[in-house]
């Protein structure tokens, strides 16, 4: 775990920037310059989608990685935010959509989804382990069937189409390049917020609750309240991700938060790694690439392209079996093995 308590006072910003490793700067510049060498499809369908999925999976990482709570309702929170944007804003269903301006419907969407996520947390934190998974899965399933059957508010099976972002500052945000930067900006802010949170009093206490709830109670912490607040924090990230997701596909339907999609978020988070905030984004990129290209590969082998989920499922199984810490775990194992192996020229560990 990262050291939480500072020992030196001055120049903390400079020190923090100096601590960022060179590869991170390289990746940051590559991401910023990506539109210069990637086509619109890659920007929009691969990276844009990866950032969005990564944000929703990041909200699960906050709960599971820092709080020890695996929630399957994060996609549901995201979808609810999308629904609220469609209902309160504009969509292709004017009979239901209220057409409120963006500065009302977007904050309200985040607020309502966050309140819902907090309520889910209030119910779920009274259980542990498999029971938390089951109760959040039950909530996700209930939400899916409710939206599918409710036509007055959620427009039932057809949901809402033509849900697009507002044209702020004269920019068409659904165009590939602006949308890429919009999702990159939101993903970066979410990532930094989680990194920041982990070293705050709340974040430190949350990790204490994960490691030893009994001891945390004996230190004066309200364990249940900390867990619920973790759901609140995670729900804000999931809600923003949900709004972007709806804008990307321009629609929100019950299937946006169907059971397969709910499970996909878990797959993304586990494949990337639940121990660090960057993990979900790595998992999301792998998922997006596989989803988009595996059908072509399967066709090449004479199999149906619809079986790409089989590839993802096998990959998930392999990670769970061989690297429970996901891709990041594999990378850390590689680094540890490399450090332990003798230097070919000098001998001894590197």
């Amino acid at each position, binding site marked *: 775990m990262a050291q939480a308590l500072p020992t*030196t006072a001055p120049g903390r910003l400079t020190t923090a920037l100096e601590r960022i490793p060179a590869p991170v700067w390289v990746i940051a510049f590559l991401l910023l310059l990506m539109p210069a060498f990637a086509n619109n499809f890659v920007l929009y369908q691969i990276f844009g989608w990866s950032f969005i999925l990564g944000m929703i999976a990041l909200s699960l990482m906050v709960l599971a990685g820092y709080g020890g709570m695996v929630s399957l309702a994060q996609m549901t929170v995201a979808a609810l935010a999308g629904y609220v944007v469609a209902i309160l804003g504009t969509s292709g269903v004017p009979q239901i959509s209220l057409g409120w301006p963006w500065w009302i419907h977007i904050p309200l969407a985040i607020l309502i989804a966050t309140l819902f996520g907090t309520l889910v947390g209030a119910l779920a934190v009274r259980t542990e382990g498999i029971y938390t998974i089951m109760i959040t899965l039950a909530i996700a399933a209930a939400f899916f069937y409710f939206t599918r059957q409710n036509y007055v508010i959620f427009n039932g099976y057809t949901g809402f189409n033509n849900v697009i972002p507002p044209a702020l500052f004269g920019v068409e945000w659904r165009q590939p390049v602006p949308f890429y930067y919009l999702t990159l900006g939101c993903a970066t802010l979410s990532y930094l917020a989680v990194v920041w949170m982990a070293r*705050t009093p709340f974040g430190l206490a949350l990790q204490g609750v994960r490691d030893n709830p009994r*001891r945390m*109670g004996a*230190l004066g*912490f309200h364990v249940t309240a900390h867990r619920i607040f973790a759901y609140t924090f995670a729900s804000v990230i999931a809600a923003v991700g949900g709004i972007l997701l709806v804008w990307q596909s321009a629609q929100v339907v019950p299937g946006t938060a169907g059971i397969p999609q709910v499970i996909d978020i878990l797959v993304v988070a586990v494949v990337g790694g639940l121990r660090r905030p960057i993990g979900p984004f790595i998992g999301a990129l792998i998922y997006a690439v596989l989803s988009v290209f595996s059908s072509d590969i399967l066709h090449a082998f004479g199999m149906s392209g619809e079986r790409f989920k089989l590839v993802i499922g096998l990959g998930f199984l392999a990670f769970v079996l061989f690297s429970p810490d996901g891709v990041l775990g594999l990378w850390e194992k590689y680094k540890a093995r490399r450090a332990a192996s003798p230097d070919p020229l000098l001998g001894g560990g590197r």
Partner: protein
Amino acid sequence: MVALTRPATIGADRSAAERLGSVTTGNALELRGVTKLFGALAAISDVTMSVRPGERRAVLGSNGAGKTTLFNCVTGDFLPTSGTIRLFGEDISNFPAHERIRRGLRRTYQISLLFGGMSVADNVYLACLGVSRGRFSLLRPRPSDPIIGRADELIEAVHLTRVRDTLVSSLSYGQQRQLEIALALAGAPRFILFDEPAAGLSPTERAELIDILTGLPDHIGYIIIEHDMDVALRVAESVTMMHNGRVFKEGTPEEIENDEEVQQLYLGGGHG
């Protein structure tokens, strides 16, 4: 384990302890007919006990006598099946653990329940944070944060400054016991429950533990569970003997040491 010194933080927080004390009166801890059943098994049965403010009490008894269950009922880890528990006059029988801690109650654990994946500084910081405001803060602590200052004082008081940034899982057993005591002393403790603090320590470390316990400020009372009679009878001014979940005998250390029934039952007849 190096020598423990009286933590400056405890003295500094005395005013806070007195503020807490000003709103309540009576015994520091008062148990009336406390019973804890696990199914048909009575772990403790009809335990009645009063401890004055600042009093140091040893609770002795063989394994299975109900000592740790008694602690768990007092701290809120278990809710008693029946009976009342009062802390400085306030009925805390149904309070959750964290509410009891905020009223000045602290405890150490028989088996160290520390946060192995965190540093010493983080552990003590958490202990200080638990009884402070800002537990939900999303602002990172600054170096001038008073909670960090208090945590560092406690770390220094238990002579762990050298390993301040070391992961707790890397500490020696003796250092972990020192850290346990530092956690119990965080904030404004008014009453502490020590659960076998000397277990696993060397004779030298035990002598040092006695120094820290006898050196605690007068306003802090405690109950100590300890199998080492040399430690228990030297740091306590009164003793409660438990047997089969019940209070068996109470008295001064001398009275207990010289009691024939106690010697037969617990000391094997050959002690002293």
